């Protein structure tokens, strides 16, 4: 018995390191700013690589929203010469793409990688860089609002006209709404302190407010929620984290899952099974539906039963 045990222990000691951590990898991360969704991607990425048995040392860099620092980070990463670079958001990806041509780079949280100049095409990235887009499922989100408010005539939206992502999403929203015969009332802000004013300007002009994936507006979201509570105006978001903060509901890309899927791409690269040049840009199919009962009650909407039944999470 003892011998068998000893044998098993020895076998474990020999095989486990071989299977799991034949070597230590280094991964450098460049992220433009700290923000719950962006942090969730980073966490998901790290958790999945750990799960998959990779022994990884991380060099994490966050530019605090400063694009000058952002380029310095790209140079810093070049000096670290990691096995892989993870870039989170468009500006961080562009700076790294400009500076690093010989290390595999995976981007995540980029809405339009072709327009950003990161890849030639989504199917054939062609160089040392590939990754995942987070293009928001706007159609599914408008459908969700219609489930709550079948009679919805006008949707108000708040976004920062200075965010590339937001322009793409707002145009997409207008396109989708046009097909449904819904009017879109826009309010744009320059910084998160303008959100309160923007939300107020929409009161009386729309049946619901929709907050796209906009870093500026999401960081000042509480102001919009406050206005919506006071005026019994339902507010919907494009990310699930915001539902926990007080929006009625969201069907969204789950950033943590996005990090997990990006890590799967990373595992293929670190394991030597794939090269970025041949890895098509991926999108997340697995969406999550969150509803907030209290928010719905305060903003005067009933949660339809079919929505309640398929919700991934109900916030009480």
């Amino acid at each position, binding site marked *: 018995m003892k011998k068998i045990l000893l044998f098993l222990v020895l076998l474990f000691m020999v095989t486990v390191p071989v299977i799991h951590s034949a070597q230590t990898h280094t991964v450098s991360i460049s992220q433009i700013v*700290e923000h719950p969704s962006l942090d969730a991607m980073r966490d998901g990425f790290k958790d999945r690589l750990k799960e998959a048995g990779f022994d990884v040392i991380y060099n994490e860099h966050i530019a605090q929203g400063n694009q*000058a620092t952002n*380029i*310095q980070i790209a*140079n810093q990463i070049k000096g670290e010469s990691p096995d892989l670079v993870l870039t989170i958001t468009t*500006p961080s990806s*562009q*700076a790294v793409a*400009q500076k690093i041509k010989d290390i595999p780079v995976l981007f995540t949280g980029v809405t339009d990688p072709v327009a950003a100049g990161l890849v030639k095409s989504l199917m054939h990235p062609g160089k040392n860089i590939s990754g995942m887009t987070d293009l928001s499922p706007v159609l599914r989100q408008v459908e969700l609002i219609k489930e709550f408010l079948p009679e919805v005539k006008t949707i108000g939206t708040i976004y920062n006209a200075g965010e590339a992502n937001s322009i793409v999403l707002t145009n997409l929203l207008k396109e989708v709404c046009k097909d449904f015969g819904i009017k879109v009332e826009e309010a744009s802000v320059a910084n998160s302190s303008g959100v309160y004013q923007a939300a107020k300007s929409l009161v009386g002009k729309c049946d619901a407010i929709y907050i796209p994936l906009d870093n500026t507006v999401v960081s000042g979201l509480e102001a919009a929620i406050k206005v919506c509570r006071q005026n019994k105006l339902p507010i919907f978001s494009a990310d699930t984290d915001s539902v926990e903060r007080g929006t009625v509901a969201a069907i969204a890309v789950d950033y943590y899952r996005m990090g997990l899927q990006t890590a799967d791409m990373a595992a293929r690269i670190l394991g030597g099974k794939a090269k970025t040049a041949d890895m098509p840009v991926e999108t997340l199919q697995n969406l999550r539906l969150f509803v907030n009962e209290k928010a719905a009650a305060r903003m005067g909407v009933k949660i339809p039963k079919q929505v309640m039944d398929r919700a991934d999470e109900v916030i009480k």
Partner: protein
Amino acid sequence: MSLYAFMGAIEQGTAFGLMVLGVYLTFRVLDFPDLTVDGSLPLGAAVSAVAISNGYHPLTGMAMAVGSGFIAGAVTGILNTKFKILHLLASILTMISLYSINIRIMGRPNITLLGEDTLIDQFIELSGLAPHYSTPILFAIISGAALLALIWFLKTSFGLAMLATGDNPKMVTSLGVNRDMMIIFGVGLSNGMVALSGALVAQNQGAADVNMGIGTIIAGLASVIIGETLFGKPNVTRAMLSALLGSVIYRIAIALALGVRFGDFAFTPSDLNLVTAALVVVALVSPHIKSGLLKRRAS
């Protein structure tokens, strides 16, 4: 700090050095606190990026950037001198309008230069050096040339009048110098240099982005102050050189802060702003401490 990070800091320091020279010109020479720079840096980036992506030579794009920056600065100058709006407010007004104007110019908030033939690519090809050597060399040449041009300009009679405008506005007016003209031209010149800096930064970063100007004035002032503290300012030549060197030192300090490892003593990425502020405070306070120590030793 790795070689790449060090060369990168020099590259950043010289690219932003043009901006710092511009800030020096307004802040110290004209005594005109000018926040236009947060808008004119991305303006230069936007104009040059649109020009380059429409097939113009990068140098043409950069010349257009300088022109647009000059106009932006002149607008601030006119708001201040002709419409009697306080300099700080005048520059804020121009800065916030530039946000909208920059999006108009680009047609969207972000224009990529990845894959475009930038001046950096052309210089890499010309010099045959690796990018991490050739880019800092290119930027050092450009900012060095701008430095020499500026020193030459400030020694002409027009330049001397500009120096006097900041020092003693009453005197220059009594000498028959048109003070308003000096302010308008000076702030214009300053922002022309800032816009040129933006054009270089955009090519270096692979994109022009409407938000890239955030924090420009802080970096500019920090660099000016660090330069003055370390290298002194006995005359115009030395002062301008100090400003440029201050820019490089500032970026090296940031690179050092970025390179701090996460050991038991954990500097997290979110500490970066604090580190930057602490750096400026140290630069501001150190001359006092130094003179205090000297006094104590003397007594």
